[in-house]
C-alpha cells in the first residue's frame, strides 16, 4: 500500500487533502477487514506510545481511540485530565509538555476549548497531536468515520465493495446537516470532509443555531427543511448541545422537535436509499424520534462500530508513515554496526 503524505498533526479535516481523506477511508477498509478476523490485533505500532488526554470526558470517543491503538499493538496511556489535578486556569502548555515528557509518540486530545489541540501541537517537541474534539471547532475522526460509514452503505446498496471506490460515490451527493450547527464540532468536520469528497452540503437549523456568518462555508442553507429532506442522500442529525448554551436558542424542545427534529413523518419524505447518521449520544424524542433512531436507515450503531477501524487508520497513517520508515532504517543500521 502506498502512503500519501500525511500531516504531522490532525487537528482539522483541513489538514488533509482530498486524497488524504480517501487514503484514510481506504486504509480503514483494510482495518475493518482485520476486525472481522478472530485475531483482531496487528503488530503495526508495536513500541509506539499513544496517550489519550481528555480534558472533557467522552467515554465512547476515548474507548474507540484506545481500542484502535491497542489493536495496532501500541502502548496506551490513558490520562483523564478532566478528573485529575488539572483545574481550569492551569497552563495548557505545562500540561501538554508534562505529558510529552512521559515519552509518548502521539497525543489524542479532547478539550472543551476550541483550538486547544492546535495550541498543543505548537508546544510538543516530537509528539504528534490528534484532535479528538475541541470546543465548537472540529472533531475530525468523527467526520471521517461518518464519511466512511455512508460510503460503505452506498457501496452495499450497489452490491459492491467500498474499498477502492475512492471519492466516486460522493460525487454530486446531497448531504443535509440538521440541528445545532453553531455549537457543533462535528458539523465543521463533516462540512469539510463531505465537500472535499465532492458532495454538496446543505444546513438546516433555526437561525439561532447556525453560525452567525457562513461567508467562507462551502454550503447552502435550506430555506425549506421539508423540501431539503426530499433531496437528501444523507441526513446528518446533530444533538442539541444544551450544555453549551443552545437551550436558550430555541423557545422550547417541543418547538425544536416540531420544526427541526427528525420525526417519523419527516422520514417518510426521504427518498429511497437515503441514510441517516448521528454522532451520538442521541437524545431520543428531541432531535431524533425513537422510531427513527431504530430504523434500519439510521446508521448510528454502524458509526460507533466503524469508529475503531477509522481511528486505526488515522493512527497508522500518522505514526507509520514515512517518518516511521526512516526510524526503522536507522534501527537496522544500528543493529548492523
Amino acid at each position: 500500500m502506498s502512503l500519501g503524505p500525511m500531516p504531522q498533526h490532525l487537528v482539522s479535516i483541513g489538514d488533509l487533502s482530498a486524497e488524504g481523506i480517501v487514503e484514510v477511508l481506504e486504509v480503514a477498509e483494510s482495518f475493518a477487514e482485520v476486525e472481522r478476523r478472530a485475531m483482531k490485533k496487528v503488530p503495526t505500532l508495536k513500541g509506539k506510545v499513544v496517550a489519550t488526554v481528555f480534558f472533557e470526558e467522552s467515554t465512547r470517543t476515548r474507548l474507540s481511540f484506545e481500542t484502535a491503538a491497542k489493536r495496532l499493538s501500541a502502548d496506551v496511556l490513558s490520562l483523564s485530565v478532566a478528573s485529575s489535578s488539572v483545574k481550569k486556569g492551569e497552563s495548557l502548555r505545562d500540561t501538554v509538555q508534562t505529558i510529552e515528557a512521559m515519552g509518548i509518540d502521539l497525543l489524542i486530545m479532547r478539550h472543551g476549548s476550541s483550538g486547544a489541540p492546535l495550541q498543543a501541537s505548537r508546544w510538543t517537541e516530537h509528539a504528534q497531536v490528534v484532535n479528538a474534539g475541541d470546543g465548537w471547532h472540529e472533531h475530525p475522526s468523527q467526520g471521517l468515520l461518518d464519511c466512511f460509514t455512508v460510503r460503505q452503505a452506498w457501496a452495499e446498496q450497489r452490491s459492491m465493495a467500498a474499498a477502492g471506490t475512492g471519492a466516486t460515490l460522493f460525487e454530486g451527493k446531497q448531504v443535509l446537516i440538521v440541528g445545532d450547527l453553531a455549537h457543533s464540532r462535528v458539523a465543521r468536520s463533516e462540512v469539510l470532509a463531505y465537500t472535499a469528497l465532492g458532495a454538496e452540503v446543505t444546513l438546516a437549523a433555526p437561525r439561532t443555531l447556525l453560525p452567525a456568518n457562513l461567508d467562507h462555508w462551502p454550503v447552502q442553507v435550506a430555506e425549506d427543511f421539508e423540501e431539503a429532506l426530499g433531496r437528501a442522500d444523507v441526513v446528518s442529525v446533530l444533538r442539541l448541545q444544551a450544555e453549551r448554551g443552545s437551550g436558550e436558542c430555541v423557545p422550547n424542545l417541543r418547538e425544536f422537535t416540531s420544526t427541526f427534529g427528525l420525526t417519523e413523518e419527516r422520514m417518510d419524505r426521504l427518498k429511497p436509499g437515503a441514510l441517516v447518521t448521528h454522532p451520538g449520544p442521541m437524545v431520543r424524542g428531541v432531535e431524533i424520534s425513537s422510531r427513527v433512531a431504530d430504523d434500519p436507515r439510521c446508521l448510528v450503531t454502524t458509526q460507533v462500530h466503524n469508529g475503531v477501524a477509522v481511528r486505526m487508520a488515522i493512527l497508522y497513517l500518522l505514526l507509520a508513515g514515512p517518518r516511521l520508515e526512516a526510524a526503522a532504517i536507522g534501527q537496522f543500521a544500528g543493529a548492523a554496526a
Partner: protein
Amino acid sequence: MNAPFGAFEHPVVVAGGQVLTERGLERLDLVVHQGIVVELGASVDHPAGATVLDASGALVGPSFVDLHTHLREPGREQAETIETGTRAAALGGYGAVVAMPNTEPTMDTAAVVHMVLERGRNAPCEVAAAGAITVGRLGAQLAPMAELAALGVELFTDDGTGVQDGGVARRAMDYCRGLGVTYAEHCEDLAIAHGGCVHEGAWSALLGLPGQPAAAEEAMVARDLLLAATTGARLHLLHLSTAGSVELVRQAKARGVAVTAEVAPHHLSLTDASLKGYDPCFKVNPPLRPAEHLEALLDGLNDGTIDAVATDHAPHTPELKDLPFDQAPPGMLGLETAASITYEQLVAGRGATIERFFEVMATQPAKIARLDGTGARPFGHSVHGQRVAVGTTANLVVFDPEVRWTLEVDQLASKATNSPFSGARLVGKVRHCLLRGEPVVTDARSTR
C-alpha cells in the same frame, strides 16, 4: 518662566532634526535647560557640558501621551509594575500615561489613587490616574469621584467593562459634569456580547469561537452619545473598534455633542484573520475586527472623528497566555510599538500629515487628559502635547520614521511579553525621549 517640578538641571542639545513648531516642520536645533526649551534655531551654541543628542533624519516633537495604560500596580505586579510600565512608556516615546483604574484593589478610593500617583512621581514617564466610575467597577454605586478629582483625576472609567445600567451611566455623567471631569467608557453591552471572546463574523464561525457582534460596542456608543447630549457631560469613548462606532461619533460631533474618542494601534493594523492559530496574544477586548472596520477607523482617525491613539497597553504573564484561547485574558502590550504602528498605518499607509501624527499621539490625548496645562496638577504633572517653542516644557520625543527593526519580545522593557507583533518587522522607532529636559531615553535605550 519657572522650571517645572523635577526638572533636569543639565543642558541638552537636540541637533539635526525636523522639529514640529507652530509653523510646521522645520530643520532646527534646540537647547533645553532646567526642563525648558531655551533656544531654537538653525544652529545653536552648545552650552558647556551639554549632552548632545543626534536627531538627524528624525522628527522632533512633543512626547506622546497615552490615555489608556494598564500599569497593573497594585495587584498584578507579576505582569507589570509602575516602574517597568513607565520605562516601557518612555522607550515608546511617552511623556505621560493615564493609569487605568482596574487594579486590585480598584482605583476607586483616594488611598489607592494616591499610592499610584506617588509611585509614579519619579518615573521616566509621568503617571496620571483615571478613577473608577463605580465602586469596585461593579456598575452600581458611584465611586467617591470628588475625592479622586481633588487628587487631580480628570478621567473616570470602569474600563475592562462598560457601565451596563443606563440609569447608573446617566447619574454618573451628571455627577461628572458637576465636577467638570470626563466620563470615559469601555463600550460593550455584555448582554449583546454574550460572552463572545472574538469578533462575530467569518472567523469566529470557522474557528468555533464564541463571537460578539460589532453591535455590542455600537449599542453602548449610541446610548452614551444620547446620554452625553442629555446630561451635557464630557464623554470620552475608549478604544473604538467598529465602523459603526466611528459613524455614530461622526454624527454626534456634527450635532455638537461633547465627545472625544480614541483608537488602539492594534485595531489600526490587525484583523480577525490573525486569530487563525488560536494564539491568545491576539485576544483583546474589544476584539480584532475585519478589514472594513480597520479602514473606517483609519479614516476616522485621519479626518478627526477619532481624536487620539491610545495603547490599551495590557500586560499579562506568559502563564495566562498559555491557556486555551477562550480562557486566556484579553489584552496586548502596546507602549513600545504604538508609535511605529501608528506612523506606518496613518502616515505611511494613509497619507496623513506628520502634524496629524503628533496631534493624535500627543496634543489631543494631552488635552483629553487635561495634561495640557489646563487641569489642576496637585502631583506636579508638567505640561504635555505642545508644539516646540522657546519657553515650552521639554517633554520631547525624537522619532526616526525610517529605521527598520524586528520586535523581540524578550527585549521589551515591559515585564510581560504578550505583544501581537512578536517577531514582526516594524518601521520607525523612538530614538530619544526627554522628560522635563532629562534624556530618559537615548539611542532607543533607557537611561534609568
